[in-house]
């Protein structure tokens, strides 16, 4: 299975994603430069974390106009699985593949810590191997993760079962205290209506081996491998 990891100027978790996919998971991955126009036949697209274009103007606001994003939009429209992690999530919001926007964290501080992440939905390609209510222990590292959307959008997300992850304590309770950044309704990750585009603020790619403090993130990547294998994609590339 081939993953494309898109590299923007300022991406800094691209190699973490590449490492998790290739070294830990044993799948194929290729870096795709943001000025490229083709995803080179990828089965999965990862928009990694970092500070694309220095976060100038707004997080993800410049990256959304990169040439590769046309290919990403087409890939997503055709049902291809796209995962935006942290800055990748912010880019998905800015380019309109996911609804809402990020505000500065409510305490105006950059948060770099482990958080609890409750899985709300398992009917996305990136959570297919999770259990509903399962709590993943994953790191966050962001200054703008305070998810905001108008009330009608939140209601739509809720009604459509599109809130995929919520910040929660390790007992699985989505409390105010477990919310690191002030995100509305403890929202940490959402998906599009077709459920193939998922964005989340925490970093699963940085938590794929117990050596680095948690291997809870691996299930996100295993999920998409499993989801695509079920569609017959795995056989096509593992020959």
């Amino acid at each position, binding site marked *: 299975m081939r993953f494309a990891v898109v590299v923007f100027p300022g991406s800094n978790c691209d190699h973490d994603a590449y490492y998790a996919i290739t070294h830990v998971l044993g799948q194929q991955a290729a870096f795709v430069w943001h000025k490229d126009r083709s995803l080179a036949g990828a089965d999965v697209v990862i928009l990694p974390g970092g500070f694309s274009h220095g976060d100038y103007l707004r997080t993800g606001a410049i990256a959304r106009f990169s040439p590769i994003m046309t290919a990403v939009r087409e890939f997503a429209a055709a049902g291809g699985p796209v995962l935006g992690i942290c800055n990748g999530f912010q880019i998905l919001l800015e380019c309109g593949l996911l609804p*809402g*926007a990020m*505000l500065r964290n409510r305490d105006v501080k950059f948060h770099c810590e482990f958080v609890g992440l409750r899985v709300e939905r398992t009917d996305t390609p990136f959570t297919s191997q999770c259990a509903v209510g399962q709590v993943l222990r994953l790191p966050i590292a962001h200054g703008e993760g*305070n998810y*905001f959307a108008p009330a009608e959008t939140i209601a739509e997300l809720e009604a459509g079962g599109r809130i995929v992850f919520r910040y929660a304590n390790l007992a699985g309770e989505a409390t105010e205290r477990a919310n690191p950044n002030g995100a509305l309704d403890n929202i940490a990750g959402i998906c599009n209506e077709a459920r193939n585009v998922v964005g989340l603020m925490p970093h699963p790619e940085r938590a794929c081996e117990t050596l680095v403090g948690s291997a809870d993130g691996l299930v996100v990547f295993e999920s998409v491998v499993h989801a695509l294998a079920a569609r017959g994609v795995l056989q096509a590339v593992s020959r």
Partner: protein
Amino acid sequence: MKARVFVTLKPSVFDPQGRTIVDALQSLGYAAVADVRQGKYFELDLDVRTSDDAEKLAGEVAGRVLANPVIESFRIEVAQTDRPEGQR
């Protein structure tokens, strides 16, 4: 021709930076500063001749790029003197 673009968070959107600033001002004794909302200010140098064209162009880039319509609104000010033909 110059256009000024002021981008501000919509009134319904919480402004963590403005909140921090007003807290700091009040702790400095400026009790009369009741609230602060932080925004962004852009000066655009536009290669157009009429203020109508400047307003239109500034509005387009503000709506498409400078402001995020989910959380922000914008206001534009354009110098009202139209330049004669051939001058920038």
